[in-house]
């Protein structure tokens, strides 16, 4: 559920229920799903492309300096001079939304990257070592999972100091268990395979087995999960900056812009709905892309 940080869990749960049991039905299902998604995946890809382009070309694309204040022209309506109007200190909303793309995309990518790296390490260690260590690591992951994510983010934010870094680390921590479980499952599945036994019998050291065999096979599900998680990480970053954590002024992220504009809803709703629309469209597009990636890579749904 959007706005709660672990939306990915729920969507995954729902998605997992869509996987049918028998292969025959699988084929029929995929026809259905592919047909339903046929129009959506290109849209998603287009959105992502636009987002990345906007983020990269922000300095060129933004009509105004996002930090340039103009106290004589505050809360201006959208018009020719300012396509999305101005905010409470006269800054151009459109330019801030454009520059905000960088923050949001970066937040999503970095948070998920942290989670993937940390989670994978935990997962590999747990899966490969087994026994007590496996138990300990998995208990740790369960503990993180049962911790209310917002409290975790707030507390970590206070400890690590205000700023984007604190939020990214907090989000990384929150998403780590998902990837840890995933990686561990992959490791266990692969270890059971014969060629690993053979490699071990031949005396190959553990880490090399992990590197050569486990990782390449695990990459697919990780990518699938990661692409879904990025969308939710972006939402989570927006939610946290809505609550006041994260990016420090005068920089803006979409969430902090919505928060700042909240008090002006009656007089100047464009301050809220400009970045709001950008956030929504980006997340929707990323979601479609994530679904498409899963369709393409997940062996279970492959026709």
């Amino acid at each position, binding site marked *: 559920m959007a706005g709660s940080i672990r939306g990915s869990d729920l969507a995954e749960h729902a998605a997992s229920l869509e996987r049918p049991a028998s292969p025959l039905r699988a084929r029929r299902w995929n026809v259905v799903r592919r047909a339903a998604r046929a129009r959506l995946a290109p849209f998603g890809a287009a959105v992502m492309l636009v987002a990345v382009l906007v983020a990269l070309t922000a300095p060129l694309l933004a009509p105004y300096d996002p*930090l340039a*204040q103009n*106290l004589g022209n*505050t809360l201006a309506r959208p018009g020719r001079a300012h396509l999305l109007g101005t905010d*409470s*200190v006269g800054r151009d909303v459109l330019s801030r939304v454009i520059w905000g793309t960088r923050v949001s995309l970066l937040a999503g990518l970095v948070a998920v990257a942290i989670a993937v790296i940390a989670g994978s390490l935990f997962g590999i260690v747990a899966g490969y070592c087994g026994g007590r260590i496996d138990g300990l690591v998995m208990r740790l992951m369960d503990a993180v999972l049962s911790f209310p994510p917002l409290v975790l983010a707030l507390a970590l934010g*206070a400890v690590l*100091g*205000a*700023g984007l870094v604190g939020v990214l680390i907090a989000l990384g921590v929150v998403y780590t268990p998902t990837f840890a479980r995933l990686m561990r499952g992959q490791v266990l599945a692969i270890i059971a395979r014969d060629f690993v036994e053979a490699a071990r019998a031949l005396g190959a050291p553990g880490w090399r087995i992990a590197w050569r065999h486990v990782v390449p096979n695990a990459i697919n599900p990780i990518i699938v999960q990661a692409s879904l998680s990025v969308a939710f990480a972006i939402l989570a970053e927006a939610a946290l900056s809505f609550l*006041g954590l994260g990016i*420090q*002024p*005068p920089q803006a992220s979409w969430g902090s812009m919505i*928060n*700042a504009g*909240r*008090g*002006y*809803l*009656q*007089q100047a709703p464009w301050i809220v709905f400009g970045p709001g629309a950008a956030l929504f469209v980006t997340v929707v597009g990323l979601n479609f892309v994530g679904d498409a990636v899963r369709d393409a890579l997940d062996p279970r749904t492959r026709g």
Partner: protein
Amino acid sequence: MTLDVKLGIKPGLAESWQQPDAKTVVFKLRRGVKFHDGTDFNAEAARFNFNRMKTEPKSVRKGEVASIDSVDVVDASTIKLNLKRPDAALLATLTDRAGMMVSPKVVQERGSELERNAKGAGTGPFEFVEWVKDDHILIKRNESYWNKQGGPYLDRIRYRPIPDDTVKLQSLQTGEIDVMDYVQPRDVAAVKADRNVVVVDVPSLADFAYQLNHMRPPFATRALRQAVALSLDLDQIVKGVWLNVGVPANGPIPPTSWAYDKSIPPIKRDLARARAKLAEGGQPNGFTFTMTTNNIPINVQEAEVIQAQLREAGITMKIKLADSATLIADGNNKNFEMISYQWSGRPDPDGNTYQFYKTTQGTSLNWSGISHPQIDALLDRTREVSSQAERRKLFSDLTKLLQEELPMVFIIHPIEPKAFSPKVQGYEPIPDGMMRFKDVWLQ
């Protein structure tokens, strides 16, 4: 005692008072007043209260009554306060929380429960009914209130905490609530135009400022502090951020106070002088520092505007947002360079000055760490002297000195606009920030 609209001290529970000498205050207490639980309010009860304020381990009023050495009961309705030192600010303090008397019987019976259940404890026009935490406080009319002139007229009053300002305003506009304690500056214009709502501009006693840390660079250097002060355009801040819901500040004393000196202007922006000060302070090309402020929209806005203003002088300011707990911790530990400080204000100018600028060891509200012998002398003198005219002169001198030494950079004395449903009649705003409903009635 109580305050009138002009912040004059008027009789309340104390009918009259005299000061035979600088270290003694004799109060003649009103007779026939009862606490809400039926017990009498008398000299014994008053003494009990003062002792409780001084000696109770968890007493937050200790600092306010620190100058009182002992309290004598002269007769059933007269008490004598013996002071350790002259304290010209004491009377004004006793119009506030320190002067609010509670029933000794309730205190003794209820102990720490009193924090949550104040039934029968007070003497005012309304008495406590219930407190449902985070939902509401309910009070009802005191039928046996001693002041028969006028109210109380209202049957019951319910206080509801609503954390979101927009929601608060909309609740008023839809009629869900009748009174709103504070209208955000950004909503004032719209609310004033709304015919379903009445807005009263209450000038407050508050001063909003930023404390500068004198104990570490860069602001250990006075010239650099002055450079910052000279780079600020207070008019632009008050107009652009606060939308003129307030006036630029020349110091800690607000215009509502008798001690305010309007001949001292707020520091005017002067970029040329600012740059000269930068050079004088050894940073001709500007310098960088961090400002810590609270994570509230208007604070953030003000910080951003200040950041832009300082940039024009070549000073680079970074903004660090913190929640209240972190802000207070940083302030108390002097772990900041420039930090936001919003003081709600006290009726006597002493409350806006002494504890902030007097040299103090250890943790205190003197976050800047300023220690200036002349300022200390002035502050002490304002407490010793009793003539208001003399004190006013002293506070003027203090204000001028503060503009030089800059323990704080003063920004604004805000106005507190309060909004009412047109049904609410008879409200008299008093600048100390407390809303009194004794003479209020509903049409």
